[in-house]
């Protein structure tokens, strides 16, 4: 229970196409995170799945059944809204009971389900309060509780952590993940925060401008980004991206003038090199010479901002607390195997 498949989902508001044909299949019990910059269509996609909005084209299947034309209520899904959407005039208990009462469920069963959910989420003392008397984190739990009591085939979570402060967000993140493994239900989680996506997801769906850029496990996305967008979007601080042109076989000229010898690469036409800041190390004989412009010492590691020839920016994360003077020239080396290569269209080039 809880398999969701999307086939060529499209959504247009007038002439503006927000979703441009999305194919996706979500397995039973999976925690899938939709991530992407704002306006990429991730929330719209979630609303299509929920049934609150109808797609302009394509079909949605849940457990093998076509539900595209079915109303939101008949899809057996539960949604946690960004603003929680708790009914302000009802107590926590009433909020959780409201949806169940619609289905004319026996009172005893309603009470039992709510008691179970309240125990699971540790909100038992709050059942008689109203949402206005709860803290942000408590409201969040109630909103999740309201979804849990319905025993849905899948949970849809629309940026549920974005209204919490930073500290609470980290702990709720862990709790949600734990909750997922306990319930074993399918969850779709929408966020614009790639750290949230990396830490929570079984699989991440990266969306941009209404298209799926890549679907994979968090580490695969990090290690083998399919294209420039995913490479730049996943990982913090962001990947160094340097446009370059091949000069002779195995020799490349970076934008700005730095020369790079990479004998294992035989490429024609302009490319972009990608290198994670963590893969750079200080080396007096390294191929990259850069001028230090800023050092952010975080204690365990230091983020070094520097400029290559021609003012091209370089970002390096170095372990410990190296003593680097501002405006000094330093040299970096890296393992050529860690280098990502993208072609002129921004697609990954296999390098063996």
């Amino acid at each position, binding site marked *: 229970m809880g398999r969701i498949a999307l086939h060529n989902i499209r959504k247009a508001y007038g002439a503006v196409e927000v979703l441009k044909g999305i194919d996706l299949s979500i397995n039973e019990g999976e925690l899938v995170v939709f991530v992407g910059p704002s306006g990429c269509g991730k929330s719209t996609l979630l609303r299509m799945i929920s049934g609150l909005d109808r797609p302009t084209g394509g079909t949605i299947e849940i457990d093998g059944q076509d539900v595209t034309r079915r*109303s*939101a209520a008949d899809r057996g899904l539960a949604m946690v*809204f960004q*603003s929680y959407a708790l*009914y302000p005039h009802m107590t926590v208990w009433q909020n959780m009971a*409201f949806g169940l009462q*619609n*289905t004319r469920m026996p009172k005893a069963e309603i009470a039992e389900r709510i008691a179970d959910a309240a125990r699971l989420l540790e909100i038992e003392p709050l059942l*008689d*309060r109203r949402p206005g008397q709860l803290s942000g984190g408590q409201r969040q739990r109630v909103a999740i509780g309201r979804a849990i009591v319905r025993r849905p085939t899948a949970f849809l979570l629309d940026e549920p952590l974005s209204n919490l402060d930073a500290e609470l967000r980290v702990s709720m993140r862990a709790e949600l993940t734990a909750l997922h493994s306990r319930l074993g239900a399918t969850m779709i989680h929408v966020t614009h925060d790639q750290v949230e996506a990396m830490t929570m997801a079984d699989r991440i769906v990266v969306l941009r401008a209404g298209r799926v850029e890549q679907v994979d496990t968090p580490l695969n996305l990090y290690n083998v980004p399919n294209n420039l967008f995913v490479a730049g979007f996943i990982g913090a601080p962001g990947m160094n991206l340097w446009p370059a042109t091949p000069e002779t076989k195995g020799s490349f000229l970076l934008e700005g003038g730095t020369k790079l010898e990479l004998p294992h690469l035989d490429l024609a036409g302009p490319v972009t090199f990608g290198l994670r800041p963590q893969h750079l190390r200080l080396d007096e004989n390294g191929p990259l010479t850069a001028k230090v412009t800023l050092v952010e010492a975080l204690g365990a590691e230091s983020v070094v901002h520097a400029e290559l020839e021609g003012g091209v920016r370089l970002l390096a994360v170095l372990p410990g607390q190296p003593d680097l003077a501002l405006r000094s020239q330093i040299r970096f080396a890296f393992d050529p195997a860690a280098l990502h290569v993208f072609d002129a269209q921004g697609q990954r080039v296999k390098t063996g």
Partner: protein
Amino acid sequence: MKPLASILGAVIAAPLGWIAGLAEAPLRLWQRLTGKGGMIAFFLLPNMAIFGVFVLFPLIINIVYSTTSGSALFLSDRDFVGLGQYERLLRCDDYTNTLTCQEDQFWTAVKNTAVFVVVQVGLLISIATATALILNREIMGRSFWRAMFFFPVLLSPVVVGLIWRWILDRNGALNAALVGVGLDPVNWLLERGWAFAATIGITIWAHLGFYALILLAGLQAIPRDLYEAAEMDGTPPGRVFWRITLPLLMPNLLVVIVLSLIRAVQVFDEAYVLTGGGPGTATLYLTQYIYEVGFASLLKNPGLASAASILMGGVLIVLTLVQLGLSNRNEKKGKQK
């Protein structure tokens, strides 16, 4: 919206500003002499003087007025009679029959007004709520529809009264329509029941848009995602209305009920132009009674009118307090639960 408002405001503020410029030098001197306190007094004085003389002072001496008798206008020429005027207003031999009352006109007016208030406010609020619900839907040209219902609100009561007097005339459009579909014409304004209903109908027609707009603002303040949450739960429309919309609209509804009650108790303009209180005394309402006893009739009795107006003011204050108390209790209940 914003630029239009600003332009309008600027057009109005400009001439005022010019006059204000002339006052600059003398007022600087005044400020130097009297300090900030003097300026505060200066800013408050015009409004407070007018307010004091024409609102507050009359309000206070009204009580004195109601304890005097005679037809003289100024208090100094009037005789003190204590609670005599109230006694005259309120005394009845048999309270089930207004004809046995000393001031049977007053009791008729009270009875008419009471029925009017209950029926008119009930209908008005129901229709306004329904209209607001419909205007809150995703309909094309919503601003047009919203403005349309508001149009009669701007018309003067005299115009409203005359428009409907013309339509409800014996040879008017409504009777023509009745005859057209094969029914007998009705003498709307000369039959007691119909005339009474007509005053209720036209006051609803004239005020509906105002209340519908306030309720619409209340509806629009209810977050959309509450409705989406309800939709996810498969809540039927009726239950959405009773369990979500209505409770969340309650604060606005209370405000609207207070305002419409207070206005209904004072009903005068439209009804007076439409029926003049007739036929007989079928549409004689309190304000008209006060107006006639105090000003229009040959046997003017300002003291009696004043006593009646104080009784009406008392009702208005009680209504307001009851409603305020209700809404306070609602709030407290909300916090405790």
